[in-house]
C-alpha cells in the first residue's frame, strides 16, 4: 500500500530532497523534477499516484499547471506546497482542483499526512 509513486516539482533543490527523504521513509517511490516542463514529460511517460508541486515557478504560473494537470489526469491526487503570505493562492489552488496543500516549512509528519489519501483532517497526532 505504501509503494505509491510520487512526483515532486519544485525549483528549489533542498525542498525536492527534503520531500524525497521524508516520503521514502514511508515507502513512497519518489521522482523529482526541477521544472514544470520536465515534470509534465515524466508524468506522460510514467504513471503517478501523487503530484507534489510548488505554486510559484519561473517558467509557468502554478495555476495554469494545476488546470493542465487536472484536465489531463482527473483522478490524480494533487498537493500544493506554498510559502507563507500566500493564503489567497492556497485557497485559490483548492478551488482550481488541488486536493490539499501544505505550507513551507513543514514538519515531516505534516507532509506525510497530506500525502496519504482519505485521511481525516483532525486526527489525533501524538508525540
Amino acid at each position, binding site marked *: 500500500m505504501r509503494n505509491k509513486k510520487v512526483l515532486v516539482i519544485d525549483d528549489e533543490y533542498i525542498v525536492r530532497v*527534503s520531500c524525497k*527523504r521524508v516520503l521514502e521513509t514511508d515507502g513512497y517511490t519518489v521522482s523529482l523534477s526541477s521544472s514544470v516542463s520536465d515534470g509534465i514529460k515524466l508524468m506522460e511517460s510514467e504513471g503517478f499516484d501523487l503530484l507534489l508541486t510548488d505554486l510559484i515557478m519561473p517558467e509557468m504560473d502554478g495555476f495554469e499547471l494545476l488546470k493542465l494537470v487536472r484536465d489531463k489526469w482527473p483522478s490524480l491526487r494533487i498537493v500544493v506546497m506554498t510559502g507563507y503570505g500566500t493564503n489567497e493562492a*492556497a*485557497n485559490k489552488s483548492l478551488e482550481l482542483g488541488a486536493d490539499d496543500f*501544505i505550507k513551507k516549512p*513543514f514538519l515531516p509528519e505534516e507532509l506525510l499526512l497530506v500525502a496519504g489519501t482519505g485521511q481525516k483532517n*483532525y486526527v*489525533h*497526532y501524538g508525540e
Partner: protein
Amino acid sequence: MRNTVNLKIMVSLSALLMVGALIFWYKFIFRANEEMLVKATEDAAYTIEIIRNSIRYNMMSNHSEVIQNTLENTTEAGLHAIIRVIDHNGNIKFSSNKNDLGKSIPPDSMICKECHAADGKIILKDTGRNFFFVEKGSHGRTLKSFIPVKNESSCSTAACHVHAPDATINGIIEAEFSMSRLDRKFKENNLDVLILGIIFLALIAVTLYLLVSKLVIKPIIIISEGIKMVTRGYYGHTLDIRANDELGSLGHAYNDMTKELRAGKNELEEKTRALSEIMEQKSREVRKTQKQYMYTEKLASLGRMAASVAHELNSPLTGIIVFARLFLKRVPLENKADQDDLKVIVEQAEKCSNIIAVLLGYSRTIPSDNLDMDINKAIDNALNILKNQARFYNVLIEKDLDPSVPRLQGDQSQIEQVFINLLINASDAMNNKGKVIIRTRRFTEDVNEFAEVEFTDSGPGIPIENLDKIFEPFYTTKPEGKGTGLGLAVSKGIVQNAGGRIFVKSKGGEGASFFIHLPINKV
C-alpha cells in the same frame, strides 16, 4: 499742473486785456490827442489871421517899423511862435525873431511847394487851413502854419507903390509853433495810460490767480490726491470739498465712488479669506491623503520585501526542519544530549518561520483594492490554511456560522490573517489540544448593524491583570522562541482599519473569548 492751468488763464486773459487796453487807448487817448492837434492847427490859423489883420493897415501905410514892432510884441505878449512875413521871392521882410531879418527861404521849402509844383504849375489852394509839421531833431517837431497875402487893388494903389498891380500873391505870413509842450503832454498821457493799464492788468491777474487757485486749482489738487490714493489701492479716504459747484459735485462723486470701492473691497477680501480657508483645508486634506498614501506605499514596499524574503527563506527552513527531524528519529532515545540538541535546531527554525509569518501578517495591513468580504468564507479559508499544520491535529473546531451575515466592506485577506492569528493563539494557549468554537452572528447597536465573530477556546484563559496588555505590540506570554508579540497588535490594527473593534473576555481557568465587531454598511 497748477502752474499750467493758471498760466494759461493768465496769458490768455492778459492778451485779451491788452487788446482791450489798446482799443481803449486808440479810441479815447489817441483820438483826444488828434483833436488837440487839430485844435492847435486851427489856433495857429486864427493866430496868423489875427496877425495879418492887425498888420494890414500898417502894410497899406508901409509902416515897416510898426509892423516889425507888432511882430516882436507878439513874442513879448507870450505867444510861443515865430511869426515871419515873407515876400513872394522868399525874402524874410519881417520876423518876431530879429535874427531872421535879411534871410531868405530856399525855393524848395515846404511853403513854396504848397502852391508851386515841381513842373512849374501853380496850384492855388484854399488859403484858410494851410499847415504842416517839421521835425527839427532834438528840438522836437514844430507846426508851421501860413497864409498867402493876396495882391489887392489897394496894395498897388497905395502911396508906397511897393507892389505891382498885376501880381497875384504879394507874400506869405508864416507862423512857426513849437510842438514840444503838446508832444510832451501826449507822451505824458500815453505813459499814464500805460502805467494805469499795467497796474490794472496786474490787479486783475492777481485777483484772478487767487480766485482760480481757490475755486479750481485747490479742489483739483485735493481730488487728484484722492485719485492717487485710489490708484495705490487705499479706499478709506474721504474728500473734504464743501463747494456747491461742479467741483463740489465731483468731490461728492469721488466720495461715493470710494464708498462703493470700500464695500467692494471688503466683500472681495471676505471672499478671498473664505476661499483661502477652503484652499487651506483642501491642501490639508491633500497632505493627509499624501501622507496616508506614502505610509501605504511604505507598508507595501515593506510587504513586498518581506514576501520575497519569506519566499526565499521558506525553502532552506524546510530543509533544516525536515533533516533535523529525520536525524532526530534516528538518534536513540537514550542519547538525550543529541536528542535535545536536534530539538533546539527544529525549534529555532520554527521560530524563524514564525517571524516570517508575522512579518507577512504585518505587511497585510496594507488594504487591497478588493473591498468586498464574506466573513463565513474567510473563516473557512483560514481553517483551510491551518488544518494541515501539526499544531491543529488535536484541536477540534466547532463552527456555528450565521448564513444571514451579509457581505461586508473590507479586505477579506486581511481579516483571514486576523482569524489565523487568533486560531494559532488559541491552539498555542491550549498546548495544541482542545476545542475552538467559532461563531458568527449579526446584531444591532443603536441604529448601526454589526457582524460579530467569536473565537472561544477551551484553554486556561487570560489572567485579568493581562487583559489590558495583550493587544500591545511585543507583549507575549508564549514561551521563549514561540511568539513575537505582534500577532494581536497587528490584528487589532487590521480590525480598526476596517472600522471595527476587537476585544477579549476571559475568566481565569475557563478559556478566553475573542470578539470582533465589524460594521455592516447599508447601501
